């Protein structure tokens, strides 16, 4: 492998690993945002889920 090829190959590896890191960071950030969101929603959730679901009965419409 020539120096130039080695350099290109190294560069490719570096860029691949940067992409991986970015992808990981993005999905980690996404998960963190989701955790935050779930915590916020915990505060407003229907208190008695079973009762709420049971009583949610509608007349059929159009």
């Amino acid at each position, binding site marked *: 492998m020539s120096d130039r090829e080695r350099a290109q190959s190294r560069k490719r590896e570096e860029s691949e690993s940067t992409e991986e890191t970015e992808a990981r960071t993005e999905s980690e950030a996404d998960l963190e*945002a*989701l*955790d935050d*969101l*779930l915590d*916020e*929603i915990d505060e*407003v*959730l*229907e208190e008695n*889920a*079973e009762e*709420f*679901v*049971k*009583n*949610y*009965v*509608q*007349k*059929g*419409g*159009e």
Partner: protein
Amino acid sequence: MALHKVLGTETEYGIVVRGDPAYNPAVASTLVVNSYPGARVKLQWSFEEESPGRDARGYSHDGYGSPDPESAVVNSVLANGARLYVDHAHPEYSAPETYEPLEAALYDKAGEWVMRKAAATASEVSGRHVSLYKNNSDGKGNSYGAHENYLLSRETPFGDVIRFATTFMVTRQIFTGAGKIGRENDRPEVDYQITQRADFFEEEVGLETTLKRPIINTRDEPHGDPSQYRRFHVIIGDANLSEVQIFLKVGTTALMLAALEDGALPDPLDLFDPVESCWQVSHDLTMKHPLDLDGGGTATALELQWRYHEWLAKYAERELDDPVWKDLLDEWERTLNLLETDPMKLADTLDWVAKKRLLDGYRERDGLAWTDSKLRALALQYHDVDAEKGLYYRLANRGAIRRLFTDEEIERATVEPPTRTRAYFRGRCVTEYPGSLVAANWDSLVFDVGEATLKRVPMMEPLKGDAARVGRLIDESEDAATLIERLGG
């Protein structure tokens, strides 16, 4: 060139009175509609021009759909030109006629603001807690509608609509669904599906809207000059909270119908069994289910939607100037691309994906099964129109959902009518002459100006009565009597 696609939506909201499972939903809906504190006129909705029993295939059904006397008294027209009333034990908001799909989405959203205020006031005056939901199913086999309306030319043979629109309606579900846990109406078991409504469709074509629901509804009630117009009444769609999704749903459909009228759809892409395909599309989160085609072979809903995208992009470029269509086609392309590669990336624009992301998060964090009540409660709460309780609004307020409108724009759309359709005349008359309006319909207003007879103003042309034609006339008429006189009557 196809007739301009005037369009609008109508939504029946789910209703719950907290702590009183035995409440009468018709009474509660009446309370909600009567409690709305915004600008409007309560009046008689004149049914003489309505004909829900007339069939687009050319015959009439006697005694069909005559108005329920109890709900007929609870009617009002809002300052934005909308109708707010009680239908089938649900409060219903029928948006005013709009000129293009972005405006249609704005006035659909205004309905949520109207319902939110109506529910809050109803709770206040009754001392009960009334909650409203913009959804289409109670998860127990009962469905209620979100309909769309599009103006068609009377010259368009209805057979062409049936032939060319059916596959589009079935396959657009991949981006029109609001998401639902489980199945209903004896369809096969499924954990989660794309739409709320698909399970309820049992016929390809028909007049019914409350049972044996058809993919193509044939109600021939143009709400305009019947010699010139048809109204295509779409009942196969979900109520959406996402602004982008409403825009996509009504925009792609209006575009498809314009192309249909101009003969620009080269192939009906017939499905072998549209009714079976309907729930199959909704139950398939992978986007890979092969639908049987009538001429043999198969295609996925996504592949068929790409065909429509290709045809309609060419059609729009050739025929339509308004930049709204370019925005629509770009959004549609992004949506189809992501549905193909990673549907969960559409959590910022599609209700079914946003809701699934939330449910997946809870399933993972709390180890919940799909059948858990907590998940079902969450799925319902996504649709609560209360800005604090409604999970859609929680997501939107955190920036997790992309918006097209500001809250201020939506607020304004609850009191100001669209300016390019006859809804302008209706809405302005509600604001300017509330004491003189005694009856209304989509295509007429009736005034009492203190004379021996009532004065009826017909509005048989959906594009007339707009701001350009009547704005100044209304500005310069200090009362309804003057307005009527200047209108020549």
